[in-house]
């Protein structure tokens, strides 16, 4: 019997939710495990980096990496897994477009370290000690990975073959992706393995979206009683659905929460945030600058709203903090 195809999972700067989503396959995971050999999965299995280094290059059929890239260690692992894998898949929003961690690109490395190790209200650090990449402790050299200046998506570090979008991707998309890989009938390189229309297309509330939104006020979801049957935008609640790739089966919408954009833009769009901004700003129902200003003031944290998952891959990428 020939060897089963080898699959690996790895995580970089991420919350662990993507790992959960793999477990969310439930009993289907048995089917996957039967079809493939999982050769590396730090969360669940006890293999080390040196084991991967020992594998021949290209010996892994596919590696799914979740999380964005912030540290030198994550970079090294990305390079290593790229070398060992025939197919590298960016798994989840962070690997795909930078994800929530890339919102940190609004701040410099120095700003972040100072806040986290000195200024945060819960920190007591009178000597202002900060973690150092190299340190001597009782005569032993210990090291930490370097903390890079920017958060990057996986494809900003190594070449990526496919993307599974979502925060996290749905088990259904994962299963489909694995089956596609095993079938050998591969889509063109660079494909995002989800439908290429925006979420409105699948939204159960599509019928209730008015032609002209005429937004008089932006409301945050927790400020208001949300009508469970009406388009969020029609209720003045920012919904990223029009600018976000579908494939999630509108799960948030079904839970009466607006889309926050985790599936990223469609293949035609370079900057998800700019697109929804351009669209929503045109729907503001005011003519005078001060009235427009007043309505727009209702958008608290525009970057965190419109670029929640995609700042690293946006045209801006980061705030210039020099």
């Amino acid at each position, binding site marked *: 019997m020939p060897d089963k195809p080898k699959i690996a999972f790895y995580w970089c700067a991420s919350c662990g939710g993507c790992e959960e989503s793999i477990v969310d396959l439930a009993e289907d995971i048995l089917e996957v495990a039967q079809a493939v050999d999982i050769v590396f999965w730090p969360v669940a299995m006890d293999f080390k980096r040196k084991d991967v280094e020992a594998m021949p290059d290209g010996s892994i059929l596919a590696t799914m990496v979740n999380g964005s890239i912030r540290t030198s260690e994550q970079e090294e692992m990305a390079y290593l897994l790229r070398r060992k894998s025939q197919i590298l898949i960016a798994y989840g929003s962070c690997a795909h477009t930078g994800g929530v961690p890339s919102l940190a690109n609004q701040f410099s490395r120095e700003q972040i370290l100072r806040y986290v190790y000195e200024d945060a209200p819960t920190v007591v650090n009178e000597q202002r000690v900060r973690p150092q990449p190299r340190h001597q402790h009782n005569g032993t050299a210990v090291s930490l990975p370097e903390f890079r200046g920017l958060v990057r998506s996986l494809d900003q570090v190594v070449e990526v073959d496919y993307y599974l979008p979502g925060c996290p991707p749905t088990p259904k998309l994962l299963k489909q992706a694995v089956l596609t890989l095993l079938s050998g009938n591969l889509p063109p390189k660079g494909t995002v393995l989800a439908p*290429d*229309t*925006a*979420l*409105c*297309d699948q939204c159960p509330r*599509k019928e209730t*979206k*008015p*032609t*002209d*939104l005429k937004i008089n006020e932006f409301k945050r979801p927790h400020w208001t009683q949300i009508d469970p049957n009406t388009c969020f935008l029609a209720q003045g609640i920012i919904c990223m*659905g*029009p*600018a976000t790739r*579908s494939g999630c089966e509108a799960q948030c919408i079904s839970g009466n929460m607006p889309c926050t954009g985790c599936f990223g*833009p*469609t*293949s*035609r*769009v*370079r900057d998800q945030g700019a*697109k*929804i901004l*351009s*669209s929503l700003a*045109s*729907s503001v129902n005011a003519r005078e600058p001060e009235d427009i200003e007043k309505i727009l003031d209702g958008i608290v944290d525009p970057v965190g709203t419109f670029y929640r998952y995609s700042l690293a891959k946006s045209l801006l990428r980061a705030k210039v903090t020099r």
Partner: protein
Amino acid sequence: MSEQKNGEVRIGVYVCHCGANIADTVDVKAVAEYAATLPGVVVARDYKYMCSDPGQELVQEDIRNLSLNRVVVAACSPSLHENTFRGAAERAGLNPFFVQMVNIREHDSWVHSDREAATEKAKDLVRAAVRRVYFHKPLEKRRVPIHSEVLVVGGGIAGIHAALTVANSGKKVYLVEREPTIGGHMAQYDKTFPTLDCAACILTPKMSAVKAHPNITLWTYSEVVSVDGSVGDYKVVVKRKPRYVREDLCVGCLQCIDTCVFKEPKFDDEFNMGLSKRKPIYIPFPQATPKVVVIDPESCIQLKTGKCKKSCLEACVERGAIDFDQKETYEEIHVGSIIIATGFQTFDPRRMPQYGYGKYPNVYTTLEVERLVNASGPTGGQVVTRDGRVPKSVGIILCVGSRDENTNRWCSRVCCMTSLKLAHLIKEHTGAEVFIFYIDMRAAGKGYEEFYQRVLNEGVHFVRGRVAEITDWALDPSEEGKLVARVEDTNTGFVRRIPLDMVVLAVGLEPQPDALNVQRLFGIGCSMDGFFLEKHPKLAPAPTYTDGIFIAGVCHGPKDIPDTVMQAGYAAAEAIALADTGYFELEPNTAYIVEEECSGCKSCIPLCPYQAISFNEEKKKAFINEVLCKGCGTCVAACPSGSIKQNLFEDEEIFSEIEGVLAYAQ
């Protein structure tokens, strides 16, 4: 650059000297030499006048001999010569949309003086175009058929002349006028400058001709209420207001007016600027066209209360033309093009209280004096003041509501000549001393300067200075019972007080109060001053940015009768040419929806300024009518899922252009 996708790209770059216009500030040779080094560029040349025949021939020869499939011309604005070079490419067998222009004149040589920096900028702009043109695709112009019918909106001299011109060419015309009669402001004038032709004598035959013309459908007392569609097929709905008199039965005998229960006219006569009275049932003026009476629902007892003897009905019992039950009706028509000639309003001098209009009865506007000197006017041509005196001294103040930071900044163009004419007529009618208070006398026009000289020789006094105020406060006995103009005579340097029996304010011309509604209704532009915007101030002063809609007369900007007639004729000629061509070629830079990619979120629909986008309820997708699309790109930018594309402005074209222009920073 993906060679597989676009085949082998062979670009020719042509840098124009524009005589010295560009070459003086930009080192055109250096730009061409630089362009030759760019990827994909096969040939780069500079030439003295690219737009000349030999210049175009240069491009065509290269296309044929060097198998060019992209052309970049660095010269002037594409609004001037894009079509020239597209045409040249087409004649050489290349799809014209493989041509890209770079504006190194208006955007570069004309606005810079540093030769070195301007040359670098030209290189940047050329590099951007070279990168962009790489992604160009062959495009085809689409043709839409043109209805030959023409709608003319407004029945003043502009609308009348345009309607007659179009009708004489054999096309059907609908002429829609808001008032009960056509004729407009010109019908109110007494004489016309500089020839002193009687305005009515030259206008009324044209009015009759409109009424009698077999190709003209005249709808007075009517207004356009909706406009849909686009060039070639505008669907227009016209509201016909009830005049309570049946137009098909009334013969204009006017007996109904005589028998009206109001024995004396007691309502302000609009045509005579309120200087006389009319009855509730009236005809605006004797030569009104159509000669059909109209009942004013605001003053007619029957229409207001339902309790009147209705003696007018009795007077017309045989014809039965009077119909108190008449309701407004709506007519729907299809026309290929529209000429808008909605005219103007005169400045309301109450906005300049220092001149006392509305406060002192003997302060008049020029339009009121037109009626006073007119033989069929309220006084039968007698120039008498409101208190019944024949004035011995009359002052005419120019630029009231014109050339004034506080009111309107523009010159109304007609007031100087109107005032000269009225000075002459007042002098002729009364022998009064006439003073003209002016800032500058503007008498540009055929025979105008000569007329100015004539009035000068007639002894009219010209005082150069802006009148500070008109007052009735007498300082000495000679001023008792008179109005006094306080003015600095800037020719002599003295502040003067000039006692006057009558003051005439030469009021300026303004856009109609509802011009903004008209602008929106027809989807045309407006300049800062509120007058309708022409497509080009010099070379297309009647077309608008909306294809198939033309403007004529003062709705476009102040002008006198000859200029109005010329513009109306020009607008008519454009409409006729369009109808005779039979089709209209659409620029292909339109937007389109990639249907399978559209999520049906409708974000684009309300944004389209041309109402070109609709929602297909069956497919749940948006749809762009490419005939209506003007290629503004608003929907393309706003489509949140990037599912709208625009020919000539696709993402890769725009991003490559931006990358090209910014490449110097790398």
